[in-house]
């Protein structure tokens, strides 16, 4: 593994019986990069991500995350990554403070460090007045920003974001991406899946998955040149070969459930 690469996948494959969800994908992600992982629902994004974060065993191929092998060292991988899922995932019946303390705690932050980080995080997000309120009472956009900050709490090398901005308004999405940029500036690698094509434009490089394969991988600019179109949306449509006459257009609010 080159020093610069924090994720390396080589012919990574996952099959469920006869069905090949992820078909021999290969790619690298560099340190500090914002890597967009695009694809329609059912294209295999979530399955691929699950192999990288150590909760699903690959069927074939090789992959290393933060320098650790996904087969033999998933525990070491887990200590070095952050993860935020497409379903908002903090505890609604815990307060802002309790959530931060709990998640910091399971990553083994010391009490002193935890207190420091908690104060810092609350003031950065401007949550001072509501830090003792239950998370369930916050608007969705705030919850998602909080969830992202919590996933960064233990200073991970890479953060995996699985459709982090599903269901929020454009302004909150904008804020969310500002937070992503800030984290990337501080050297955290961002691996993000999305189906909002405007978000794809914000990424340093994107890969587009179609039916389990990576069909394109480059910077948004080069991809647009290559396909001779003006937007990532058109790149995506060309590759994904939709709209298909029999299938409704992928709206994408559903869970990627392969």
């Amino acid at each position: 593994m080159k020093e610069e690469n924090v994720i390396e996948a080589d012919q990574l494959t996952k099959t469920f019986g006869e069905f090949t969800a992820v078909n021999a994908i290969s790619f690298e992600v560099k340190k500090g990069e914002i890597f967009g992982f695009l694809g329609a629902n059912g294209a295999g994004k979530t399955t691929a991500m699950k192999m990288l974060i150590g909760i699903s065993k690959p069927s074939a191929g090789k992959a290393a995350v933060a320098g650790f092998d996904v087969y033999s060292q998933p525990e070491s991988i887990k200590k070095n990554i952050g993860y935020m899922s497409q379903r908002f995932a903090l505890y609604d019946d815990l307060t802002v403070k309790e959530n931060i303390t709990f998640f910091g705690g399971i990553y083994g932050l010391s009490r002193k460090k935890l207190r420091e980080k908690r104060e810092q995080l609350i003031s950065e997000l401007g949550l001072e007045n509501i830090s003792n309120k239950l998370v369930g009472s916050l608007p969705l956009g705030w919850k998602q920003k909080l969830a992202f900050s919590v996933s960064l709490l233990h200073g991970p090398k890479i953060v995996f974001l699985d459709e982090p901005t599903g269901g929020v308004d454009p302004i909150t999405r904008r804020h969310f991406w500002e937070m992503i940029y800030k984290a990337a500036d501080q050297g955290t690698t961002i691996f993000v899946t999305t189906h909002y094509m405007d978000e794809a434009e914000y990424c340093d490089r994107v890969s587009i998955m179609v039916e389990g394969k990576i069909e394109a991988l480059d910077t948004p600019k080069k991809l647009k040149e290559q396909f001779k179109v003006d937007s990532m949306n058109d790149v995506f449509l060309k590759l994904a070969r939709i709209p298909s006459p029999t299938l409704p257009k992928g709206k994408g609010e559903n869970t990627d459930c392969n």
Partner: protein
Amino acid sequence: MQLKINDEISSPLWELEWKMKRFIGFIKKEFYHIFRDRRSLFILFGMPIAQILLFGFAITNEINNVNIAILDHSKDASTGEIINKISASKYFTVKQILTRETDIETAFKKGKIKAVLNFEKDFSRNLIAEKRATIQIITDATDPNTANSITNYINAILQNYQQEKNRTIAVEYQIVPQTRMVYNPELKSVFMFVPGVMTIILMLVSAMMTSISITREKELGTMEILLVSPLKPFQVIIGKVVPYIFLSIINASVIVLLSIFIFKMPVQGSLFLLGLESVLFIITSLALGILISTIAETQQAAMMISLMGLMLPVILLSGFIFPVASMPVPLQIISNIIPAKWFIIIIKGIMLKGVGMAYVWKETLILIGMTIFFIGLSIKKYKIRLE
């Protein structure tokens, strides 16, 4: 590649401390969930007390102050004595004196009385002259168990009366049955219900509540976050289960205390053994709860499986209400796979008969075996999901 966090956990002592802290944090969070959810609180603390009081006071097989009516065609010395004897007992109250046969039907239909005693004409004379007199006992059998008990009680009173009468006359031979009800001499039904209710509550709290709380994390997506964290899957499960062990032990103690102090139920055997066996059954139920949570994807499914798959068999087949021995053979065989059946045998033995481990080791081993089986099956199911 050097890692910040890996450096920190290099010393084993530090690692142990770190693990303990993480674990305590996890349990704290679990208690927040429980105490902030009114529904869980009710199931945890309201239900046991409500159930034990309900079964103790309201639901009973005993007969007490049953209203009866008398139709006395003779109105002589003997019938008077018998009526006095019956109404003096705490079991019966003479509510109505009937005068005609046709009144019997009406009296039953009004529903105020449960039995009618019909003395034949010339009762005393027949008794002395012909050595034989008859009383008709008519009972309302819409409730067969009660009707049976009433008949038995009246028969017993009549027997007793007859013996008193015969004492003065020399009889050549006589069989005098001496019955003695052991372990529950007063035939209190609460003694029968306490072990059953305790079993149901422990099952409910341990199996249903844990399966719901684990599936809730799956439903909310937080389970995924926990699995991506450095916590190992078994640590997550243990963290979720430990609070319920505590709560179940508290519940079991409350039930035992209630039955001792309110219903005067004796605990003949060792309290320590009772505690140990209860903890074993709690763990069996938790293992079942974990197994359910590996099958169910939603809280609702977990609740349905727990209620239909656990509660119903416990109530119907464990011998809690219906004796296993009088069930049809296929049901008797099925009842063997219900952990609650074995636990009820154990606690009845300890509480009522005062037996020790020497008498319940077989049942204990069966429960241990079942627990190991459930845990093994859960691990296997869980692994398949991860693959």
